[in-house]
């Protein structure tokens, strides 16, 4: 059965349905969008139930010739890594639609356009993780920029155009480097048995180490911009500050994961030797991102920028886990991608509700919310606890796996990164104190607490954060085989216990 095509077609069909609706019936537009995302989520879960956990080969494979002249195929297939990320995307989509029910109002374009963009984006989010043809991946990778560009520039706040352009320029620049690398791969494949963009075929190409290094960088820089790694991060705080909360969730939760996903799927698979060459440098950048992102988060006065910087720190953890080349680091990084999506979603959505009620995103404008809007305050607090990786919540499991997995091979990096947990306590508890505690700041007296729709939207996110904190096994069982496979392909084994003798 062509599950993956079906998954991609569903939101696209939903967007067509929305397009056919009258512009004036906003409620129906929203309901259609919500129904579509819920159906996609259900379909994804149904597909996941048929996934063979211990099979490391690609599953649900589809392949159709697309542009035969160039050897380009419409080829899809998923392993544990891709499955987890598609699940993450399709669970987040209905949450975002429901949580941001009113955030499309006051945009440059209609409510209808907003949901068409969201649904088209969902199709691409599934496709980008499922693609096994490098050219198809590239096309979706670049095409995703378009809906996001319009979502930020058309529906955001503040200097939304500037932020959207900055996002676009950064991404296009990265995409350009990747395109160059892809074309080079294509050319080489022609000399070694036939032009192709097939990922598996390209990964067995022979190339000189210089070539491999250069092509690796083309991919890696594109991905390091997506999942912002220091010093390529400066577009993210601007974009997150201007975007609507829902857009930010999709941007940081899903789109940025394409970067870390790409590092595993493309950088490590296509260029194993270059990956090893650049590992020391990448690990340093990752550790800098962890600490730097955390310190910058502490220094922010704007709530949305603060959350964006916490994500830069978290992406540092994910990147470090990927390049630690241990099963714990790798599985931890993959699980981290999933968990980060939900804890950041919780932060952005609840933060967004606070901001829209208060009419300001400056942290100092809040104060005493705990006693005015207790439910909202509690949700923000829980989201914060998840972000600082409190044991018992989901992010702890992934963060600790990354740290312990890194420590066994690169103790110094892990030690510095662990200092990030103290900084995390600061970047969460400072805004918690300023926004939720203390006496009520004038102007906050009449803020309303979460309504039923908002409670329903946030409940599954919180439930996932709590349940996966205690019972991550179902996800880990899907992730582990894929992660170990990648590590083994690169020729790495987990370090064995040393008994302290070096």
């Amino acid at each position, binding site marked *: 059965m062509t599950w993956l095509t079906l998954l991609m077609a569903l939101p696209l069909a939903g967007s067509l349905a929305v397009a056919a609706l009258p512009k004036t019936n906003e409620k129906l537009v929203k309901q259609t969008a919500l129904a579509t995302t819920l159906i996609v989520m259900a379909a994804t879960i149904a597909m996941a139930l048929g996934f063979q956990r211990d099979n490391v080969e690609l599953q649900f494979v589809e392949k159709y010739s697309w542009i035969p002249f160039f050897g380009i195929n419409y080829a899809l297939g998923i392993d544990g890594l891709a499955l987890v990320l598609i699940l993450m995307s399709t669970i987040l989509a209905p949450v975002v639609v429901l949580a941001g029910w009113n955030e499309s109002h006051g945009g440059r374009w209609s409510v209808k356009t907003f949901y068409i963009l969201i649904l088209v984006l969902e199709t691409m989010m599934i496709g980008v993780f499922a693609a096994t043809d490098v050219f198809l991946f590239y096309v979706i990778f670049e095409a995703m920029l378009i809906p996001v560009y319009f979502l930020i520039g058309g529906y955001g706040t503040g200097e939304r155009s500037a932020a959207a352009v900055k996002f676009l320029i950064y991404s296009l620049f990265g995409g350009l480097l990747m395109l160059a690398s892809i074309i080079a791969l294509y050319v080489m494949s022609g000399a070694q048995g036939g032009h192709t963009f097939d990922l598996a075929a390209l990964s067995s190409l022979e190339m000189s180490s210089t070539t491999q290094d*250069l092509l690796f960088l083309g991919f890696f820089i594109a991905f390091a911009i997506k999942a912002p790694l220091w*010093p390529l991060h400066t577009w993210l705080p601007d974009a997150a500050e201007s975007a609507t909360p829902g857009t930010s969730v999709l941007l940081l939760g899903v789109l940025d994961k394409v970067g870390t996903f790409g590092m595993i799927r493309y950088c490590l698979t296509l260029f194993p030797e270059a990956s090893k060459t650049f590992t020391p440098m990448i690990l340093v950048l990752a550790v800098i991102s962890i600490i730097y992102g955390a310190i910058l988060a502490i220094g*922010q006065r704007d709530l949305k920028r603060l959350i964006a910087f916490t994500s830069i720190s978290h992406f540092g953890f994910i990147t470090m886990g990927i390049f630690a080349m241990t099963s714990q680091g790798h599985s931890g990084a993959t699980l981290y991608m999933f968990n980060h999506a939900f804890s950041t979603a919780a932060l952005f959505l609840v933060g967004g509700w606070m901001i829209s009620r208060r009419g300001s995103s400056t942290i100092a404008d809040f104060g005493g919310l705990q006693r005015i809007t207790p439910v909202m305050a509690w949700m923000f607090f829980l989201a914060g606890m998840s972000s600082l990786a409190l044991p018992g919540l989901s992010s702890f499991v992934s963060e600790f796996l990354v740290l312990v997995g890194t420590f066994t091979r690169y103790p110094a990096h892990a030690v510095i990164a662990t200092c990030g947990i*103290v900084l*995390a306590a*600061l970047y969460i508890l400072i805004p918690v104190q300023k926004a939720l505690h203390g*006496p*009520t700041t004038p102007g906050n007296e009449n803020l309303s607490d979460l309504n039923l729709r908002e409670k329903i939207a946030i409940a599954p996110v919180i439930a996932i954060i709590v349940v996966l904190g205690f019972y991550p096994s179902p996800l880990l069982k899907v992730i582990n085989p894929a992660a170990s496979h990648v590590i083994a392909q690169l020729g790495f084994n987990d370090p064995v216990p040393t008994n302290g003798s070096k």
Partner: protein
Amino acid sequence: MMSSHSLVYLIALPLAGAAILLLAGRRSDKWGHLLATGLSASSFFLGLYQLSLMLSRSNEQRPVGQKLFEWISVGTFNIDAGLMLDQLSICFVLLITGVGTLIHIYSISYMSHDPDRRRFFAFLNLFIAAMLLLVLGDSYLNLYVGWEGVGLASYLLIGFWNQKLAYATASKKAFVMNRIGDMGLSFAIMIAFATMGTVSFTGVKAAAEHTSTAALTAIGIMLLLAATGKSAQFPLQAWLGDAMAGPTPVSALIHAATMVTAGVYLITRSNFIFDAAPTAQLLVVIVGAITLMFGALIGTAKDDIKKALAASTMSQIGYMILGAGLGPVGYAFAIMHLLTHGFFKAGMFLGAGSVIHGMNDEVNIRKYGALRKFMPITFATFGFGYLAILGVPPFAGFYSKDMIIETAFNSGGIKGIILGSVTLLGAGITAFYMTRVMILTFTGTSRWDEEVHPYESPWLMWLPMAILAVGSVTSGYLLSHGNALVNWLSPLFESHGEHDEFLPPMVVSGLALAMVAIGVAIAFLKYSRSDVDAVAPSDVSIFTTIARQDLMQDRFNEAVFMRPGQLLTSVLVKTDEAIIDGAVRGVGRAAMGTGATLRGVQSGFVRSYAALILIGAVALIAAIWVVVQ
């Protein structure tokens, strides 16, 4: 290890209580406190049941375990959600649930006027559950969950009245300083996994024999760092005084009897590491010795009754840590002092709460005086606690503290003499500051304002105080009679033969009592003979000033960590915008070949960007082509 199916209920009951109360919200206002108290009591009775089962088995058969489910499993990193109850953890289970239930009962009345009493009880239940997980977890990672769980409960309870900014700040300070300690626990777990390939207690114990001293020392030092955070030991002690912002029952339960002693648990639980890592062990002793003096000195200058007691807690835990550092002999004595301290310090804190309650929330002992007549029960129960902490025979502290002093002297050589002297001196200072609190609060003339009408607390409050007072009187004798506790715990600890006796027990007791007598006498001379100022005198020596400011701990932390940290943060925020983003913008401008700013050219020039990007792409492809060929 035998397996049990019922351990999980010890934790599940209070955890369910917390969940029900938090989720039901205001609907449970009427009965929430009763449910929480009942669940805490149920856990206590389950604990007693477990104890009876243990008593019916032989020594080796006593530990029981329960595997709940597979928690984290990646490669060789396999962690089950598993519990373990042995001779050590049962002591804690009974202390936590026993004292915890008494404090639940006390709080029903103490918090009866608070509109958020239900939330308070939810947090108390959350704390009990987390603390039980801490002592029942069968691996360092399970312990970690409880370890940060109690930190969370402590944070929520210190900041229970966080509408006051100072209280909110106090709770944040406690959390952050604890996180520094938690980092140590993370490191210890990582080193253990990297060197031994396991993080379960039984696994690490078995592997420790084959592991290098260097690795064990590193683990030991990191565990000590964790202990200093949670147990408010030097150098991470500064949060405990501020933590008194929480309601007094919280101070009694979390910041005196149970949570702050978790560091002592961690060290005794890790005896197999410290026994094989003398350097780490020595550091433990040093930290304990410094803190016991540090806390005692602060205690001499505090006018806030809760802060005086908090300083005393810090100091008494210093004794326990020191004892634990003198393992294997000292482990059992550390635990014994921990248990007796749990009774008498919780009792005194509840007594302080009773006084504060009767005095319109006044906490300054200079504004008390002569309360003996108005609060006879509080006076009596507090008095028993006082005699216990002084170590007057036959009260509890006499047995437990003297054992630590004795062990310190007997640890041999110069080290023994120094440690013994420090513990003796500490006993004297303790006697001084506790007598000071006692005199200023309960005797002499009244110094309170006219509108204050002190009254004795209702029975719901004094009953728990009375029960704890019984413990303050008898627990030392009961635990040491026939070496009961030492024998009970002995299967867990390696016995390394008897140490040489440096001083006979009688001499140690005599010296300790002499020091106590001196401390009491000085306090009497200073505070009992003349009238006490209701306002703290300002013309005091530099030493008093420093002691009043907690030996400058906050100033030190602010000057060395906080301000440089804030400076670094603001510098980085500025450079991120100016330099990193600026550099990117500069490259962008150069690439565009235009002097206009990004902001200036934005939307209208998107097409030219695209064109430029295309040109760039072609150039790059050409470059790569050359390389590939």
